């Protein structure tokens, strides 16, 4: 059973469209991160959210942490081909005994066509 469920697994859209990626769990997380990964490289951190209900914006990207800290979403406005990549959510389970240990979702492969 996947602790963090990401959806959709694949997303293929045209330039200029909007999209949302979801990261859901039945567990509570003390913090949640979103990473973006390009082929042949390691993931790069986009944002960290730590407070229930928190919303963070990074240019055309909007990140939201659910009120109960069990879910998160990433919304991209007016997607561009440069947004293409693998998007990963990762969280530290609340009440865990191994601080710093992250659990990753299975990822969303986004392709934005010009």
């Amino acid at each position, binding site marked *: 059973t996947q602790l*963090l469920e990401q959806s959709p697994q694949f997303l293929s859209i045209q330039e200029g469209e909007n999209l949302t990626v979801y990261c859901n769990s039945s567990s509570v997380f003390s913090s949640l991160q979103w990473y973006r990964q390009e082929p042949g*490289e*390691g*993931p790069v951190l986009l944002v960290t959210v730590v407070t229930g209900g928190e919303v963070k914006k990074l240019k055309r990207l909007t990140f939201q942490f659910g009120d109960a800290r069990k879910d998160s979403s990433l919304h991209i406005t007016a997607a561009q081909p440069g947004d293409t990549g693998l998007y990963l959510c990762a969280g530290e389970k609340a009440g865990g005994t*191994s*601080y*710093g240990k*992250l659990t990753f979702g299975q*990822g969303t492969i986004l392709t934005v066509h010009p």
Partner: protein
Amino acid sequence: GAGVSQSPSNKVTEKGKDVELRCDPISGHTALYWYRQSLGQGLEFLIYFQGNSAPDKSGLPSDRFSAERTGGSVSTLTIQRTQQEDSAVYLCASSPQGLAYNEQFFGPGTRLTVL
């Protein structure tokens, strides 16, 4: 400054052979992580080193997998008697303090192929 480096970038081996994968973390980072990633998938946690504390080995899939970190810096992940299902990209990451909300800085990975 230099980021996390990993070597080799690619490794092809035969089933049953042992392999060693190396990670050089960012200087001064006390936390070091190893993950495994199958093609286009999420990351599977393997092992976590934090300073001088005992490592969290809870993600190692079998006793064929082991890792060490010498002098609080360089780490080596060893896979003994490799199997075809071990084929994946092995990613290393380091972090300044090992807190979950700290950014983990990833290396480019080692792509392991077991024939």
